Protein backbone atom coordinates (compact mmCIF):
# COMPACT_ATOMS: atom_id res chain seq x y z
CA UNK A 1 0.00 0.00 0.00
CA UNK A 2 1.24 3.42 -0.87
CA UNK A 3 1.90 6.04 1.74
CA UNK A 4 -1.22 7.97 0.85
CA UNK A 5 -3.47 4.92 1.10
CA UNK A 6 -2.11 4.12 4.53
CA UNK A 7 -2.66 7.69 5.62
CA UNK A 8 -6.16 7.60 4.18
CA UNK A 9 -7.12 4.45 6.07
CA UNK A 10 -5.59 5.79 9.25
CA UNK A 11 -7.66 8.95 8.90
CA UNK A 12 -10.69 6.72 9.04
CA UNK A 13 -9.85 5.80 12.59
CA UNK A 14 -11.33 8.30 15.05
CA UNK A 15 -8.82 7.30 17.71
CA UNK A 16 -5.85 7.99 15.47
CA UNK A 17 -7.28 11.39 14.66
CA UNK A 18 -7.88 12.15 18.30
CA UNK A 19 -4.35 11.21 19.33
CA UNK A 20 -2.83 13.30 16.57
CA UNK A 21 -5.03 16.37 16.42
CA UNK A 22 -4.22 18.15 19.67
CA UNK A 23 -1.22 20.07 18.23
CA UNK A 24 -3.33 20.92 15.15
CA UNK A 25 -5.97 22.43 17.37
CA UNK A 26 -3.43 24.57 19.23
CA UNK A 27 -1.67 25.58 16.02
CA UNK A 28 -4.84 26.61 14.19
CA UNK A 29 -6.18 28.43 17.21
CA UNK A 30 -2.99 30.46 17.77
CA UNK A 31 -2.59 31.18 14.05
CA UNK A 32 -6.25 32.19 13.79
CA UNK A 33 -6.17 34.57 16.74
CA UNK A 34 -2.86 36.17 15.70
CA UNK A 35 -3.78 36.55 12.03
CA UNK A 36 -7.26 37.88 12.77
CA UNK A 37 -5.92 40.39 15.28
CA UNK A 38 -3.23 41.62 12.88
CA UNK A 39 -5.52 41.65 9.85
CA UNK A 40 -8.44 43.32 11.61
CA UNK A 41 -6.38 46.03 13.31
CA UNK A 42 -4.50 46.66 10.06
CA UNK A 43 -7.66 46.67 7.96
CA UNK A 44 -9.77 48.80 10.30
CA UNK A 45 -7.07 51.15 11.52
CA UNK A 46 -4.32 51.53 8.97
CA UNK A 47 -5.53 50.58 5.48
CA UNK A 48 -6.40 53.66 3.39
CA UNK A 49 -10.09 54.63 3.09
CA UNK A 50 -11.88 53.90 -0.17
CA UNK A 51 -12.18 56.84 -2.57
CA UNK A 52 -15.91 56.28 -3.02
CA UNK A 53 -17.14 54.42 0.04
CA UNK A 54 -14.89 56.08 2.60
CA UNK A 55 -14.56 54.02 5.75
CA UNK A 56 -17.67 51.93 5.30
CA UNK A 57 -15.85 49.58 2.95
CA UNK A 58 -13.77 48.32 5.89
CA UNK A 59 -16.40 45.71 6.71
CA UNK A 60 -14.95 43.89 3.70
CA UNK A 61 -12.30 42.52 6.09
CA UNK A 62 -15.02 40.49 7.82
CA UNK A 63 -17.57 40.11 5.02
CA UNK A 64 -15.47 38.67 2.20
CA UNK A 65 -13.64 35.98 4.20
CA UNK A 66 -16.86 34.79 5.85
CA UNK A 67 -18.80 34.77 2.56
CA UNK A 68 -16.01 32.78 0.94
CA UNK A 69 -15.86 30.30 3.82
CA UNK A 70 -19.63 29.87 3.74
CA UNK A 71 -19.40 28.38 0.26
CA UNK A 72 -16.11 26.54 0.78
CA UNK A 73 -17.41 24.75 3.86
CA UNK A 74 -20.51 23.57 2.03
CA UNK A 75 -18.44 22.14 -0.81
CA UNK A 76 -16.17 20.48 1.79
CA UNK A 77 -19.28 18.87 3.27
CA UNK A 78 -20.24 17.59 -0.17
CA UNK A 79 -16.80 16.01 -0.60
CA UNK A 80 -17.08 14.49 2.88
CA UNK A 81 -20.51 13.18 1.86
CA UNK A 82 -18.98 11.26 -1.04
CA UNK A 83 -16.36 9.83 1.33
CA UNK A 84 -19.12 8.76 3.73
CA UNK A 85 -21.11 6.97 1.06
CA UNK A 86 -18.19 5.35 -0.76
CA UNK A 87 -15.84 4.41 2.08
CA UNK A 88 -18.19 4.68 5.07
CA UNK A 89 -15.53 6.64 6.88
CA UNK A 90 -16.74 7.59 10.34
CA UNK A 91 -14.59 10.67 10.53
CA UNK A 92 -16.11 12.13 7.35
CA UNK A 93 -19.57 11.66 8.82
CA UNK A 94 -18.44 13.44 11.99
CA UNK A 95 -16.97 16.19 9.80
CA UNK A 96 -20.41 16.86 8.27
CA UNK A 97 -22.00 16.86 11.72
CA UNK A 98 -19.48 19.39 13.01
CA UNK A 99 -19.28 21.56 9.88
CA UNK A 100 -23.02 22.16 9.44
CA UNK A 101 -23.48 24.42 12.52
CA UNK A 102 -20.14 26.19 11.97
CA UNK A 103 -21.00 26.76 8.31
CA UNK A 104 -24.42 28.05 9.24
CA UNK A 105 -22.92 30.52 11.71
CA UNK A 106 -20.36 31.73 9.15
CA UNK A 107 -23.10 32.13 6.54
CA UNK A 108 -25.08 34.09 9.12
CA UNK A 109 -22.08 36.39 9.66
CA UNK A 110 -21.72 36.87 5.89
CA UNK A 111 -25.42 37.78 5.60
CA UNK A 112 -25.34 40.09 8.59
CA UNK A 113 -22.19 41.97 7.55
CA UNK A 114 -23.57 42.12 4.01
CA UNK A 115 -26.75 43.74 5.29
CA UNK A 116 -24.79 46.24 7.37
CA UNK A 117 -22.59 47.06 4.38
CA UNK A 118 -25.59 47.28 2.08
CA UNK A 119 -27.29 49.98 4.14
CA UNK A 120 -24.76 52.81 3.46
CA UNK A 121 -23.71 51.68 -0.04
CA UNK A 122 -26.93 50.48 -1.64
CA UNK A 123 -29.34 52.29 0.66
CA UNK A 124 -31.09 49.10 1.78
CA UNK A 125 -30.51 46.41 4.36
CA UNK A 126 -31.60 43.71 1.98
CA UNK A 127 -31.85 43.49 -1.79
CA UNK A 128 -32.96 40.51 -3.86
CA UNK A 129 -29.70 40.49 -5.68
CA UNK A 130 -27.96 37.44 -7.11
CA UNK A 131 -25.30 36.90 -4.53
CA UNK A 132 -27.24 37.90 -1.43
CA UNK A 133 -29.99 35.52 -2.52
CA UNK A 134 -27.65 32.62 -3.21
CA UNK A 135 -25.97 33.04 0.18
CA UNK A 136 -29.39 33.14 1.84
CA UNK A 137 -30.30 29.88 0.08
CA UNK A 138 -26.97 28.46 1.24
CA UNK A 139 -27.98 29.32 4.80
CA UNK A 140 -31.16 27.29 4.39
CA UNK A 141 -29.22 24.39 2.89
CA UNK A 142 -27.17 24.28 6.09
CA UNK A 143 -30.39 24.42 8.12
CA UNK A 144 -31.75 21.47 6.12
CA UNK A 145 -28.68 19.33 6.84
CA UNK A 146 -28.86 20.07 10.55
CA UNK A 147 -32.61 19.44 10.67
CA UNK A 148 -32.26 16.10 8.86
CA UNK A 149 -29.46 14.94 11.14
CA UNK A 150 -31.43 15.81 14.25
CA UNK A 151 -34.59 14.11 13.03
CA UNK A 152 -32.98 10.71 12.48
CA UNK A 153 -32.37 8.88 15.74
CA UNK A 154 -29.68 6.42 14.61
CA UNK A 155 -26.30 8.13 14.27
CA UNK A 156 -24.87 6.14 11.35
CA UNK A 157 -28.07 6.46 9.36
CA UNK A 158 -28.37 10.16 10.09
CA UNK A 159 -24.81 10.43 8.83
CA UNK A 160 -25.54 8.75 5.52
CA UNK A 161 -28.79 10.65 4.96
CA UNK A 162 -26.97 13.92 5.64
CA UNK A 163 -24.23 12.80 3.24
CA UNK A 164 -26.76 12.30 0.43
CA UNK A 165 -28.24 15.73 1.12
CA UNK A 166 -24.81 17.37 1.27
CA UNK A 167 -23.96 15.94 -2.17
CA UNK A 168 -27.31 17.00 -3.64
CA UNK A 169 -26.83 20.45 -2.15
CA UNK A 170 -23.30 20.76 -3.53
CA UNK A 171 -24.53 19.93 -7.03
CA UNK A 172 -27.14 22.63 -6.55
CA UNK A 173 -24.88 25.37 -5.22
CA UNK A 174 -23.46 26.35 -8.66
CA UNK A 175 -26.93 26.04 -10.25
CA UNK A 176 -28.41 28.34 -7.64
CA UNK A 177 -25.50 30.72 -8.05
CA UNK A 178 -25.81 30.97 -11.81
CA UNK A 179 -29.58 31.06 -11.84
CA UNK A 180 -29.66 34.08 -9.60
CA UNK A 181 -26.76 35.62 -11.52
CA UNK A 182 -29.16 36.06 -14.43
CA UNK A 183 -31.04 38.67 -12.55
CA UNK A 184 -30.16 42.30 -12.66
CA UNK A 185 -27.26 42.29 -10.29
CA UNK A 186 -26.42 45.03 -7.87
CA UNK A 187 -23.60 43.24 -6.08
CA UNK A 188 -20.17 44.07 -7.45
CA UNK A 189 -18.32 41.22 -9.15
CA UNK A 190 -15.69 39.41 -7.11
CA UNK A 191 -12.94 41.86 -6.20
CA UNK A 192 -10.23 39.22 -5.84
CA UNK A 193 -9.89 36.24 -8.13
CA UNK A 194 -7.12 33.75 -8.67
CA UNK A 195 -6.85 34.59 -12.35
CA UNK A 196 -6.37 38.35 -12.32
CA UNK A 197 -4.43 40.95 -10.40
CA UNK A 198 -6.54 42.45 -7.60
CA UNK A 199 -8.37 45.68 -8.39
CA UNK A 200 -7.26 47.27 -5.15
CA UNK A 201 -3.85 48.47 -3.95
CA UNK A 202 -1.69 46.16 -1.79
CA UNK A 203 -2.29 48.35 1.26
CA UNK A 204 -5.92 47.23 1.05
CA UNK A 205 -5.68 43.63 -0.06
CA UNK A 206 -2.78 42.48 2.10
CA UNK A 207 -4.74 42.90 5.36
CA UNK A 208 -7.67 41.23 3.60
CA UNK A 209 -5.45 38.27 2.77
CA UNK A 210 -4.24 38.13 6.39
CA UNK A 211 -7.83 38.09 7.62
CA UNK A 212 -8.69 35.48 5.02
CA UNK A 213 -6.03 33.15 6.40
CA UNK A 214 -7.08 34.08 9.92
CA UNK A 215 -10.71 33.11 9.26
CA UNK A 216 -9.61 29.84 7.70
CA UNK A 217 -7.34 29.02 10.66
CA UNK A 218 -9.94 29.90 13.26
CA UNK A 219 -12.63 27.86 11.53
CA UNK A 220 -10.18 24.97 11.17
CA UNK A 221 -9.57 25.20 14.92
CA UNK A 222 -13.34 25.12 15.56
CA UNK A 223 -13.72 22.11 13.30
CA UNK A 224 -10.85 20.20 14.90
CA UNK A 225 -12.20 20.97 18.38
CA UNK A 226 -15.70 19.93 17.32
CA UNK A 227 -14.39 16.74 15.73
CA UNK A 228 -12.49 15.87 18.91
CA UNK A 229 -15.65 16.29 20.97
CA UNK A 230 -17.63 14.26 18.44
CA UNK A 231 -15.05 11.45 18.56
CA UNK A 232 -15.27 11.32 22.35
CA UNK A 233 -19.07 11.35 22.25
CA UNK A 234 -19.38 8.58 19.67
CA UNK A 235 -16.66 6.40 21.13
CA UNK A 236 -17.72 7.00 24.74
CA UNK A 237 -17.95 3.27 25.38
CA UNK A 238 -14.50 2.46 24.02
CA UNK A 239 -11.74 1.56 26.45
CA UNK A 240 -9.29 4.13 25.08
CA UNK A 241 -11.75 6.96 25.72
CA UNK A 242 -12.21 5.79 29.31
CA UNK A 243 -8.46 5.63 29.75
CA UNK A 244 -8.06 9.12 28.29
CA UNK A 245 -10.76 10.54 30.53
CA UNK A 246 -9.15 8.84 33.51
CA UNK A 247 -5.79 10.36 32.69
CA UNK A 248 -6.92 13.93 32.18
Amino acid at each position, binding site marked *: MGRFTTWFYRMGSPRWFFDLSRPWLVGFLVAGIVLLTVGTVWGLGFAPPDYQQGDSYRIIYIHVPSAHLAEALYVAMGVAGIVVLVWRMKLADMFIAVTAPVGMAITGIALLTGAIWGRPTWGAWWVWDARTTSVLVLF*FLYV*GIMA*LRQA*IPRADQAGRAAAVLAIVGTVNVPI*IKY*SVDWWLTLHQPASITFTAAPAMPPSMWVPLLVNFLGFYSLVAAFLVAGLRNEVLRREADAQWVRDWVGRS
Partner: protein
Amino acid sequence: MNIAVAQVRRDFLVAFHARADAVHPVAFFALTVVLFGLGMGPERHAMGALAPGMVWVLALLATMMATEGLFRRDFEDGTLEQLLLHGRPLFVAVLAKLFAHWCVTGLILTALSPLAGLMLQVPPEGLPVLAASLALGTPALTLIGAIAAALTVGLGRGGVLAAVIALPLFVPVLIFGAGASLSAASGASPAGELLMLGALLAAALTLAPFAVGLALRVSQEY
Protein backbone atom coordinates in the same frame (compact mmCIF):
# COMPACT_ATOMS: atom_id res chain seq x y z
CA MET B 1 -38.51 -1.23 -19.98
CA ASN B 2 -41.03 -3.74 -18.64
CA ILE B 3 -40.28 -2.61 -15.14
CA ALA B 4 -41.15 0.97 -16.07
CA VAL B 5 -44.47 0.00 -17.64
CA ALA B 6 -45.36 -2.26 -14.72
CA GLN B 7 -44.46 0.45 -12.22
CA VAL B 8 -46.49 3.13 -13.99
CA ARG B 9 -49.49 0.82 -14.34
CA ARG B 10 -49.33 -0.20 -10.71
CA ASP B 11 -48.98 3.39 -9.47
CA PHE B 12 -51.89 4.57 -11.62
CA LEU B 13 -53.99 1.77 -10.14
CA VAL B 14 -53.02 2.75 -6.60
CA ALA B 15 -53.65 6.42 -7.39
CA PHE B 16 -57.09 5.57 -8.76
CA HIS B 17 -58.01 3.74 -5.57
CA ALA B 18 -56.56 6.41 -3.33
CA ARG B 19 -58.05 9.34 -5.21
CA ALA B 20 -57.96 11.59 -2.16
CA ASP B 21 -54.15 11.71 -2.34
CA ALA B 22 -54.37 13.35 -5.74
CA VAL B 23 -57.30 15.60 -4.84
CA HIS B 24 -55.76 17.13 -1.71
CA PRO B 25 -52.89 19.02 -3.39
CA VAL B 26 -55.25 20.31 -6.09
CA ALA B 27 -57.73 21.45 -3.46
CA PHE B 28 -54.87 23.07 -1.56
CA PHE B 29 -53.79 24.89 -4.73
CA ALA B 30 -57.33 26.10 -5.51
CA LEU B 31 -57.89 27.24 -1.92
CA THR B 32 -54.62 29.14 -1.67
CA VAL B 33 -55.43 30.87 -4.96
CA VAL B 34 -58.72 31.98 -3.44
CA LEU B 35 -57.02 33.08 -0.23
CA PHE B 36 -54.50 35.12 -2.20
CA GLY B 37 -57.29 36.69 -4.22
CA LEU B 38 -59.02 37.68 -1.01
CA GLY B 39 -55.84 38.72 0.80
CA MET B 40 -54.68 41.03 -1.97
CA GLY B 41 -58.00 42.87 -2.01
CA PRO B 42 -60.09 43.69 -5.06
CA GLU B 43 -57.51 46.01 -6.69
CA ARG B 44 -57.27 44.46 -10.14
CA HIS B 45 -54.30 46.38 -11.43
CA ALA B 46 -52.11 45.79 -8.43
CA MET B 47 -52.68 42.06 -8.65
CA GLY B 48 -52.07 41.43 -12.34
CA ALA B 49 -48.39 42.35 -12.33
CA LEU B 50 -47.59 39.97 -9.47
CA ALA B 51 -50.04 37.20 -10.27
CA PRO B 52 -47.81 34.93 -12.43
CA GLY B 53 -45.28 34.78 -9.62
CA MET B 54 -48.01 34.04 -7.09
CA VAL B 55 -49.46 31.21 -9.17
CA TRP B 56 -45.98 29.78 -9.48
CA VAL B 57 -45.31 29.87 -5.74
CA LEU B 58 -48.69 28.30 -4.99
CA ALA B 59 -48.14 25.53 -7.55
CA LEU B 60 -44.70 24.96 -6.06
CA LEU B 61 -46.13 24.60 -2.56
CA ALA B 62 -48.87 22.26 -3.76
CA THR B 63 -46.26 20.12 -5.55
CA MET B 64 -44.18 20.03 -2.39
CA MET B 65 -47.20 18.90 -0.39
CA ALA B 66 -48.01 16.17 -2.87
CA THR B 67 -44.43 14.94 -3.22
CA GLU B 68 -43.69 14.83 0.50
CA GLY B 69 -45.77 11.67 1.05
CA LEU B 70 -44.74 10.08 -2.23
CA PHE B 71 -43.04 7.02 -0.76
CA ARG B 72 -44.81 6.79 2.60
CA ARG B 73 -47.53 4.30 1.63
CA ASP B 74 -45.00 2.04 -0.11
CA PHE B 75 -42.69 2.29 2.87
CA GLU B 76 -45.41 1.30 5.33
CA ASP B 77 -46.72 -1.73 3.45
CA GLY B 78 -43.30 -3.04 2.39
CA THR B 79 -43.60 -2.34 -1.34
CA LEU B 80 -40.62 -0.05 -1.15
CA GLU B 81 -38.45 -2.87 0.13
CA GLN B 82 -39.46 -4.98 -2.86
CA LEU B 83 -38.63 -2.08 -5.16
CA LEU B 84 -35.12 -2.01 -3.73
CA LEU B 85 -34.73 -5.78 -3.78
CA HIS B 86 -36.02 -6.69 -7.22
CA GLY B 87 -32.59 -6.35 -8.78
CA ARG B 88 -33.66 -4.40 -11.86
CA PRO B 89 -32.33 -0.87 -12.39
CA LEU B 90 -33.60 1.27 -9.56
CA PHE B 91 -33.11 4.36 -11.73
CA VAL B 92 -35.80 3.20 -14.16
CA ALA B 93 -38.21 2.16 -11.43
CA VAL B 94 -37.83 5.49 -9.61
CA LEU B 95 -38.25 7.46 -12.82
CA ALA B 96 -41.41 5.52 -13.71
CA LYS B 97 -42.78 6.02 -10.23
CA LEU B 98 -42.16 9.76 -10.37
CA PHE B 99 -43.69 9.99 -13.84
CA ALA B 100 -46.86 8.31 -12.60
CA HIS B 101 -46.90 10.59 -9.59
CA TRP B 102 -46.44 13.71 -11.70
CA CYS B 103 -49.34 12.69 -13.96
CA VAL B 104 -51.75 12.78 -11.02
CA THR B 105 -50.34 15.93 -9.39
CA GLY B 106 -48.15 18.28 -11.44
CA LEU B 107 -50.01 17.67 -14.67
CA ILE B 108 -53.35 18.50 -13.03
CA LEU B 109 -51.89 21.63 -11.45
CA THR B 110 -50.50 22.66 -14.84
CA ALA B 111 -53.90 22.12 -16.46
CA LEU B 112 -55.57 24.21 -13.78
CA SER B 113 -53.01 27.01 -13.81
CA PRO B 114 -54.59 29.09 -16.62
CA LEU B 115 -57.82 29.14 -14.61
CA ALA B 116 -55.95 30.16 -11.48
CA GLY B 117 -54.10 32.77 -13.51
CA LEU B 118 -57.35 34.17 -14.87
CA MET B 119 -58.81 34.43 -11.37
CA LEU B 120 -55.73 36.32 -10.20
CA GLN B 121 -55.89 38.73 -13.19
CA VAL B 122 -52.91 37.45 -15.17
CA PRO B 123 -53.06 39.17 -18.59
CA PRO B 124 -54.53 36.68 -21.15
CA GLU B 125 -51.36 36.70 -23.27
CA GLY B 126 -49.41 35.46 -20.25
CA LEU B 127 -51.56 32.38 -19.66
CA PRO B 128 -50.06 29.99 -22.27
CA VAL B 129 -46.53 30.71 -21.04
CA LEU B 130 -47.66 30.25 -17.43
CA ALA B 131 -48.98 26.79 -18.30
CA ALA B 132 -45.91 25.95 -20.43
CA SER B 133 -43.51 26.99 -17.68
CA LEU B 134 -45.41 24.88 -15.16
CA ALA B 135 -45.43 21.93 -17.58
CA LEU B 136 -41.62 22.11 -17.62
CA GLY B 137 -41.21 23.17 -14.01
CA THR B 138 -43.50 20.86 -12.02
CA PRO B 139 -41.75 17.64 -13.18
CA ALA B 140 -38.44 19.18 -12.11
CA LEU B 141 -39.99 20.10 -8.75
CA THR B 142 -41.34 16.57 -8.36
CA LEU B 143 -37.92 15.09 -9.10
CA ILE B 144 -36.16 17.35 -6.61
CA GLY B 145 -38.88 17.04 -3.99
CA ALA B 146 -38.69 13.26 -4.28
CA ILE B 147 -35.12 13.38 -2.93
CA ALA B 148 -36.38 15.07 0.22
CA ALA B 149 -39.35 12.69 0.39
CA ALA B 150 -37.02 9.71 0.10
CA LEU B 151 -34.70 11.02 2.81
CA THR B 152 -37.54 11.55 5.28
CA VAL B 153 -39.80 8.61 4.42
CA GLY B 154 -39.02 6.61 7.55
CA LEU B 155 -39.59 9.50 9.93
CA GLY B 156 -43.03 9.73 11.48
CA ARG B 157 -43.56 13.43 10.99
CA GLY B 158 -41.39 14.10 7.98
CA GLY B 159 -43.71 16.60 6.29
CA VAL B 160 -42.28 19.90 7.40
CA LEU B 161 -38.76 18.50 7.40
CA ALA B 162 -39.09 17.43 3.76
CA ALA B 163 -40.21 20.95 2.92
CA VAL B 164 -37.29 22.53 4.78
CA ILE B 165 -34.90 20.28 2.84
CA ALA B 166 -36.50 20.66 -0.58
CA LEU B 167 -37.58 24.31 -0.74
CA PRO B 168 -34.05 25.78 -1.00
CA LEU B 169 -33.34 23.34 -3.83
CA PHE B 170 -36.45 24.60 -5.66
CA VAL B 171 -35.02 28.11 -6.01
CA PRO B 172 -33.57 27.84 -9.56
CA VAL B 173 -36.77 26.26 -10.91
CA LEU B 174 -38.86 29.00 -9.31
CA ILE B 175 -36.61 31.75 -10.65
CA PHE B 176 -36.85 30.63 -14.26
CA GLY B 177 -40.47 29.47 -14.07
CA ALA B 178 -41.79 32.64 -12.49
CA GLY B 179 -39.36 34.64 -14.64
CA ALA B 180 -40.78 33.19 -17.85
CA SER B 181 -44.35 33.87 -16.74
CA LEU B 182 -43.57 37.41 -15.63
CA SER B 183 -41.72 38.18 -18.88
CA ALA B 184 -44.64 36.93 -20.94
CA ALA B 185 -47.17 38.84 -18.84
CA SER B 186 -45.22 42.06 -19.38
CA GLY B 187 -44.88 41.47 -23.12
CA ALA B 188 -41.26 40.33 -23.31
CA SER B 189 -40.07 37.08 -24.86
CA PRO B 190 -39.94 34.24 -22.35
CA ALA B 191 -37.80 32.00 -24.61
CA GLY B 192 -34.59 32.29 -22.60
CA GLU B 193 -36.20 31.41 -19.30
CA LEU B 194 -38.15 28.53 -20.83
CA LEU B 195 -34.97 27.09 -22.34
CA MET B 196 -33.20 27.31 -19.00
CA LEU B 197 -36.20 25.64 -17.37
CA GLY B 198 -35.92 22.83 -19.91
CA ALA B 199 -32.22 22.50 -19.12
CA LEU B 200 -32.99 22.26 -15.42
CA LEU B 201 -35.58 19.57 -16.13
CA ALA B 202 -33.09 17.61 -18.23
CA ALA B 203 -30.50 17.81 -15.46
CA ALA B 204 -33.05 16.77 -12.84
CA LEU B 205 -34.24 13.86 -15.00
CA THR B 206 -30.73 12.46 -15.29
CA LEU B 207 -29.41 13.16 -11.78
CA ALA B 208 -32.33 13.16 -9.33
CA PRO B 209 -33.37 9.49 -9.75
CA PHE B 210 -29.88 8.43 -8.65
CA ALA B 211 -30.13 10.59 -5.55
CA VAL B 212 -33.65 9.31 -4.86
CA GLY B 213 -32.46 5.69 -5.15
CA LEU B 214 -29.53 6.38 -2.85
CA ALA B 215 -31.78 8.13 -0.33
CA LEU B 216 -34.32 5.29 -0.43
CA ARG B 217 -31.58 2.76 0.31
CA VAL B 218 -30.44 4.82 3.30
CA SER B 219 -34.01 5.28 4.53
CA GLN B 220 -34.98 1.63 4.20
CA GLU B 221 -32.58 0.82 7.02
CA TYR B 222 -34.55 2.69 9.69
